[in-house]
């Protein structure tokens, strides 16, 4: 195959090989690949942290008021005698949500893969603004440090939920948290700036730096997803920043934006937060959908079913995502008529998602499925995202949301879309692009075991939460045992917690595989999956500048099993078909 890869129609890239110091090369690097990998370590670390916080929550929920294992390690202010205090539980819930959403999943999807993949998949030597790119990483780090540090300060970490509803979040005297809440705000403002700069970079790069021949309709779906996601982040993040700053001023400068005492409006915070928040949740799923589409095509050895429809669906979801935020506020006291309109727009979003789901199935249909770890996680993604999406329909119906709002049904939804959805796709993506990133394969065997255990224990941990929610168990409760109507299902917490611990343990298997393969894994060929997109048509890992000679693109992104191509079942984007099989043309 090597004989026909990349007809050198392209201009040779000038390989600049001035030796760079270690610092410039690995710490303050401007190489999009290095930055992507830096983001990978950062976000996996926060995934671990978020997971640990969750484990502590699960302990308290299953055994309320029992001393935690190693509980003695905690200061009096958090868990005297190892028994967790309610305000500490609130901090755990808040920071768990915050770390997972903003620092784990968002950075994994966008920080890691937008940086690493966009230039490689569109055939560019690097990002449009490499230095800006470096800055956006070095903004994310302090943001995370500040959030972590907030646990140590007087009054503890923010405790008003990841949604930080005012006035609770604005009134230290009501929440008992002052500095922690402010650090939470500052941390997210910095992270917002980081992601705005990043998005500016991604969008510009996709618009202006595509290789010759890489037309819009030839972009891999991953790039499409990341591009649209960047637009969402670009437009949603500043709204959050604005709201956060108002909240900060309410605490520090004595303004009254969200304080009813002097005419402020608590609901204004919710409107601003969710106007950002719902686009945000699609920021957290669109790239995952992109990865899944890509991996399903490679694994099934088929072109993506309905490529155009898939692109259309991504755009439709992104667009509709702006007009549904009110579905988080059905019971908030917002005018019920508004509720009706938000309900309708929310239900409509099911349609593009339906298109995507069925196209994924269409991609698998009559394929030749290679069930390697990436493929397994991609299939798992579809199976679980659908459950999360369908549970969304229950909540989208305002009248039924009356009952399940702020119950564990929501918590189940969150985890099916964010873990079963986003995180499964991310695991798939890590297994899939690892060889390109580190030049070695991850262990296939342990990958499959990791998938099996994660899939089983994920469902055991989170499916019962639907039941708890339907029974009327409220979320964000330090101790759920005091309610008569859920007394008889209190025990489900045990099943959930045990499964959660097992889930965490299977995460450890992944961690082991991840680090072990980095040094011991078998060397990866340039194109281990026989994939068609450009990143696989260059060495693993690619050199600084990405290409020996700049690629030229001749056709769509997922040309697998093309009848004209006889000697193999794939056709790279930069391969000239008439060269592969001169029979035609």
């Amino acid at each position: 195959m090597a004989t026909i890869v990349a007809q050198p129609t392209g201009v040779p890239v000038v390989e600049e090989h001035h030796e760079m110091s270690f610092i410039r090369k690995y710490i303050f690097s401007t190489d999009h690949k290095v930055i992507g990998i830096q983001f990978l370590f950062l976000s996996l670390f926060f995934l671990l942290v978020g997971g640990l916080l969750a484990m502590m929550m699960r302990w308290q929920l299953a055994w309320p008021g029992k001393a935690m294992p190693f509980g003695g390690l905690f200061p009096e202010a958090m868990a005297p005698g190892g028994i967790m205090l309610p305000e500490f539980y609130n901090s755990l819930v808040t920071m768990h949500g915050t770390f997972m959403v903003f620092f784990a999943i968002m950075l994994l999807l966008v920080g890691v893969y937008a940086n690493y993949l966009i230039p490689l998949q569109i055939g560019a030597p690097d990002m449009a603004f490499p230095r800006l790119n470096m800055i956006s990483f070095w903004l994310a780090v302090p943001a995370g440090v500040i959030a972590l540090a907030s646990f140590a300060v007087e009054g503890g970490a923010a405790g008003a939920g990841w949604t930080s509803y005012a006035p609770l979040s604005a009134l230290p005297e009501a929440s008992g948290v002052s500095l922690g809440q402010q650090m939470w705000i500052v941390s997210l403002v910095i992270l917002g700036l980081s992601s705005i700069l990043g998005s500016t970079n991604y969008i510009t790069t996709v618009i202006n730096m595509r290789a010759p021949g890489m037309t819009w309709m030839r972009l891999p779906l991953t790039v499409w997803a990341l591009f649209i996601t960047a637009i969402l982040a670009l437009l949603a993040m500043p709204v959050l920043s604005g709201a956060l700053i108002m909240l900060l001023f309410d605490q520090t400068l004595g303004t009254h934006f969200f304080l009813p005492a002097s005419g402020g409006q608590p609901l204004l915070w919710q409107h601003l937060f969710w106007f950002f928040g719902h686009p945000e949740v699609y920021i957290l799923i669109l790239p995952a959908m992109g990865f899944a589409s890509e991996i399903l095509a490679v694994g099934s050895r088929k072109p993506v079913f309905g490529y155009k429809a898939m692109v259309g669906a991504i755009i439709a979801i992104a667009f509709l995502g702006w007009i549904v935020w009110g579905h988080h506020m059905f019971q908030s006291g917002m005018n019920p008529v508004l509720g009706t309109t938000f309900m309708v727009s929310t239900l409509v979003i099911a349609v593009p998602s339906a298109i995507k789901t069925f196209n994924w199935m269409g991609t698998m249909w009559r394929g030749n499925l290679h069930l390697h770890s990436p493929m397994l996680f991609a299939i798992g993604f579809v199976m679980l995202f659908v459950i999360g999406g369908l549970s969304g329909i229950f909540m989208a119906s305002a009248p039924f949301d009356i009952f399940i709002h702020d119950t564990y049904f929501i918590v189940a939804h969150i985890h099916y879309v964010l873990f079963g959805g986003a995180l499964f796709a991310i695991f798939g993506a890590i297994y899939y692009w690892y060889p390109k990133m580190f030049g070695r394969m991850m262990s296939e065997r342990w990958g499959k075991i990791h998938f099996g255990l994660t899939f089983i224990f994920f469902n055991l941990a989170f499916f019962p939460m639907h039941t708890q929610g339907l029974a009327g168990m409220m979320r964000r409760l330090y101790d759920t045992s005091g309610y008569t109507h859920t007394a008889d299902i209190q025990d489900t917490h045990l099943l959930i917690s045990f499964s959660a611990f097992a889930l965490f343990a299977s995460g450890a298997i992944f961690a082991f595989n991840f680090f072990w393969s980095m040094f011991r894994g078998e060397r990866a060929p340039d194109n281990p999956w026989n994939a068609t997109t450009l990143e696989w048509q260059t060495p693993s890992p690619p050199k600084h500048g990405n290409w020996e000679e700049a690629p030229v693109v001749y056709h769509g992104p997922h040309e697998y099993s093309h009848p004209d191509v006889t000697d193999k079942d794939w056709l790279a984007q930069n391969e000239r078909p008439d060269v592969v099989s001169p029979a035609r043309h």
Partner: protein
Amino acid sequence: MNWTLPENIATYGGKIDAVFWVITIVTAIAFVLVEVGIIWFTIRYRQREGRRAHYTHGDKNLEILWTAIPALAMVVLGIYSAGVWADIKGRESAPAESLHIGVRAKQFEWNVTYAGADEVLGTNDDFTIRNQLHFPANEPILVWLEAEDVLHSFFIPQLRVKQDAVPGMTIPVWFEATRSGEFQIGCAELCGLGHYRMRARVFIHEQADYEAWVGEQIASRGQTGEAEETELATAASAPEAADEPASTHDHSAGGM
């Protein structure tokens, strides 16, 4: 042991539960379709030597079909839900003839205000009881919901009622119980360290019993309307001590 919704004692509860079952059926169909399909494909089309995938970029008709059907389902569901929503939470939905009760939430208690002898709320013979909501069955109740400090949420599962209480707003909430009995108000909106134990007891009386109860309350108070700790009210919060870790209890007692 109930695995779905708790007993429904609200007149409009049936409508809500109906919505639930309709959605359950719609989504169940989609669920089975997708999951079974995926599992079947995974087995049926797994890699085999010499198998070559069928090369296709899609199928117009199929795509139109699976866009149209969900779209249709959603529109119908939307129209259906909109009706129920308007009946329950619409601004005009509350029955004209209903018993008015004031509920004011604050960290971490529910203060319930009842019309006094003159049977009108907002006059100075009103009386307030902490953490107890009394009302008669088979009569529409209109709660005027307020919050003092932060957001709370008024939730009675069996009555299928949930409404956030927002400081600075007075939100009308109505419901009608179909039977008497004792239940609980839960607070469904995170409101601070006591959120998890911000409960109140709900006593739904038969008409006669309710009037009797109001009578003795008025008698026991004379004409003054200020809040008063009845031994019942304290009883309501008594069991807390038992099901909470001592440390927590001390803290929340001493704390804010």
